[in-house]
């Protein structure tokens, strides 16, 4: 149960490195935003950086990298359900054939 202090030192070093990376990525994502890239590129870059940061936090601070499969299965299921929840409503919202958005009774 108790880890050797040598091992813990290694851990500590990793934490500081991750901290550095997160700080750098935060600054990066803010500076990219001021470039005013086209919307698709901007979304892609912002989400990519956020994902990288998120994985860093999850992998090292939350030690996900050394966990067993069970948690991954549960989190994978969550991810899948989240995508469903996003995809299905968007398909009903944007059925191109026949439904249009209107403003109250306005129309002709």
């Amino acid at each position: 149960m108790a880890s050797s202090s040598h091992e813990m030192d290694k851990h500590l070093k990793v934490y500081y490195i991750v901290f550095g990376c997160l700080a750098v990525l935060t600054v990066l994502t803010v500076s990219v935003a001021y470039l005013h890239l086209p919307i698709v590129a901007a979304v892609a870059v912002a989400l990519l950086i956020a994902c990288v940061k998120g994985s860093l936090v999850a992998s090292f601070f939350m030690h996900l990298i050394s966990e067993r499969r069970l948690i991954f299965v549960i989190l994978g299921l969550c991810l899948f359900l989240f995508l469903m929840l996003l995809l299905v409503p968007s398909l009903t919202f944007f059925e191109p054939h026949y439904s249009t958005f209107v403003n109250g009774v306005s129309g002709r």
Partner: protein
Amino acid sequence: MSHDHGHDLPFWRKYIFSVDHKVIGIQYAVTALLFLFLGFSLISIMRYQLAYPGRDIPVIGKLLGEPIVGKTPTGYVLTGDGYNAFGAMHGTIMIFLGVVPLAVGGFGNFVLPLQIGAPDMAFPRLNMASYWAYFSGGVVMLTSFFVPGGAANSGWTSYPPLSDIATTGQTMWLFGMVLLITSSLLGSVNFIVTTVQMRAKGLSFFRLPFFVWAQLVTSFLLLLAFPPLEAAGVLQLMDRLAGTSFFLPSGLVVSGQVQNQLSGGGSPLLWQHLFWFLAHPEVYVLILPALGIVAEVIANNTRKPLWGYKSLVYSTIFLGFMSFLVWAHHMFMTGMGQTLSTFFQATTMIISVPSVIILTCLVISLWGASIRFTVPMLFALAFLPMFAIGGLTGLPLGLTTSDIQLHDTYYVIGHFHYVVAPGTLFALFAGVYYWFPKATGRKMNDFLGKLHFWPSFIFINGVFMPMFFIGMAGVLRRQFDQTEQLHGAAVQGLTVMVSWSAWMLIISQFPFIINFFWSIFRGEKVEANPWQATTLEWSAPSPPPHGNFATPPVVACGPYEYSIPGKEKDFCPQNVALEA
């Protein structure tokens, strides 16, 4: 960790703020039974309005008084809003305060740790918190009847914009739901951890009683399906309290008033998606524990192993997973195109396959049996055809073309009530009769049990069977007075019949109520294993002490080892090796 003992705890710690899973289970069960009775009473009053529209409610109308019912020169009647409030609260109470707490909170808490040979749940204090969150949720829901405008009256589905512009009761409903969701989340975390981490030695996953499997899958459904509803609830609260427009589109005109102080830009469909993302898995939350109970009772009373145990388990897991992928079949009439409707029709047809497999397994288990017609078995057996009717009538609703005519009619009401009322509720009654001796050390009376079963079975069909015909005739649900419409007036006779059956049904529950309380004190005393069952809960004393087992049980065989050839006794408990 500390030195006090279960038996010298003060009363309020032992029975009220208890951390013992068995006490919590019983608290859940008793509270839920009370709520079930309340939910049933609400609908009984509504059925008077439906059978005899606009006529004064005899006796009960006077007892309720204003503002719950409206005054007329001669007496009291339900008002349109009151009817809608009763309807919405009937649904909410039955599902979220009645059936789920009884099936999961009650039976799950009481039976699951015993069946896996654990001393308690993994987080006893969380378990207590879960009950009290549920209890508070219930209190909030009940109080909402007395706020101005009455309880929530936008249906248990609370579709906005109607629910966004509804009276204060809706806000109370949302707060109540948040508490109930919290309770469910705490409970499901507890169940999963307990099942995965705390099984007795030798109790591998494929030696688990089917009931435990059902509870495990149910817990996953609760864990992952409830949060989106919680999110939706928060959004609706924001709409109601902070003036946002998550579910309100631009340009609304309500009662001739242009709503130009609202920002608009929201979508009513969004709520429906978030709601049904929970509410379809919720159907399986209602049905899976029931299937678990029925499987236990059937195995015990056929005196033989269940047929197709592994198919049952795999079907249940598959059912649980698929239940997340069918929700939009509740929304076929919202203007859905070919792509999505095909997807959801297909998943709906697919989900019927594991249900068919489960039912087949249970019915084939009867073959070659020696069936004891005990009271729990009567309820479990009645469950099978009732669940079959409920399942089959789901087919026309799952196909868009036939759904055009049947959507939102009484056909839908008949369909899901067959699944939940003579289905799940009968299974829950089977569970009460079956595990009562474990909880109290006494058996419930057989004669009263049969007096409960037979009239219930007859009248419950009298309630729900005509609904298919009423729905077929085109009568829509949630109508205060169906005779207001031509096609509704044509089948008013059937509606009167439904109402009378419902009132007879509520009378049929009195033998149960009497039996329940009488048996607690005066019931026949029985030994630890009165049904000669095999699963672990029966190897603990009745009622089990704090900590359940004197020594941790060690499991040596599968869950349903009945009638092994060449053995003297026709059952072999799980903690006894087959060879011994």
